């Protein structure tokens, strides 16, 4: 499967999805002007990935901030991973958050509660950022 790469901007995250290795990484900020429009092609990619990918799949989340529109779209991405997991796929998520921002930990926990596959929440030291 082809790669998907979108450079990050001030309000949109960097998207780096590798269909061959199965490693999908989302980093930066996410408060696009129109979240649903922004995530539409990304979700289309993940949907195809979920249907065709056979090896292990990893989702890395390194987001500083996401608005409520993005939360909904991210939930959809996680649902595709849940689907793969349901079919016996080897999937895992690594959710990184700033250790000084306990609110970001809460967001990670909100998502973790919604899925059943391995969900690792990792604190990143603020100064290392």
């Amino acid at each position, binding site marked *: 499967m082809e790669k998907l790469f979108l450079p990050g901007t*001030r*309000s949109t995250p960097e998207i780096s999805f590798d269909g061959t290795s199965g490693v999908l990484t989302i980093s930066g900020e996410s*408060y696009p*002007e*129109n*979240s*649903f429009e922004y995530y539409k092609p990304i979700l289309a990619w993940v949907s195809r990935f979920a249907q065709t990918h056979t090896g292990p799949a990893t989702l890395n989340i390194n987001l500083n*901030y996401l*608005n*409520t*529109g993005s*939360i*909904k779209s991210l*939930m959809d991405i996680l649902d595709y991973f849940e689907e793969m997991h349901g079919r016996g796929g080897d999937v895992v998520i690594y959710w990184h958050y*700033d250790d*000084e*921002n*306990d*609110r*970001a930990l809460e967001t990670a926990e*909100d998502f973790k*509660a*919604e899925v059943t596959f391995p969900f690792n929440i990792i604190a990143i030291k*603020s100064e290392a950022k």
Partner: protein
Amino acid sequence: MKTMDLFDMRETLKTEGILICFAGPFSHGIIEELGNAVRRYLETMQMKKALLMDVFSVFIEQTQNVRNYAQKKLTEGNTEYDFNCGIVIIGRKGNKYVVSSGNIVEKKDLEEAIARLAELNRLDKDGLKAAYREQMRKVIPSGKTTSGLGFIDMSRKASEPLQYSIREINETYCFFTLRAVI
């Protein structure tokens, strides 16, 4: 305008503890620029990261709400007012922060929002969390451009119930002000 200088306005902002104020069209570029400025400014205030991000986040939700509403009116072909023109302020109240925004709204559009706010204001933190998770799972009807999470998210980040005020402009329109204390 009564006087040419902005002294009176400055005095009002000062006595109200307003740190940042913007009035004008809420373009996405402006929201990004202001958001960035807000973040940099709050960083100089030696506040906790979580509080800083809560203030920033409520600021983004409120300004994007105004912008989304303006887009909706534009789609409906309503050009009676410049709906994209709004006001947003960030102020300080003791050791708390206030984020407030105001815009022109058609009265009929307000009913749903007001009912929602009343419902959310009755919930405690756990209730808000449950409402949030429920909404996260709701299927968005096609054509909708908003997640329905905005008010719940703001309520979760606020330390007091969300407040609002409505000032009538005419039979059809009013000016709606939303205020979150964080």
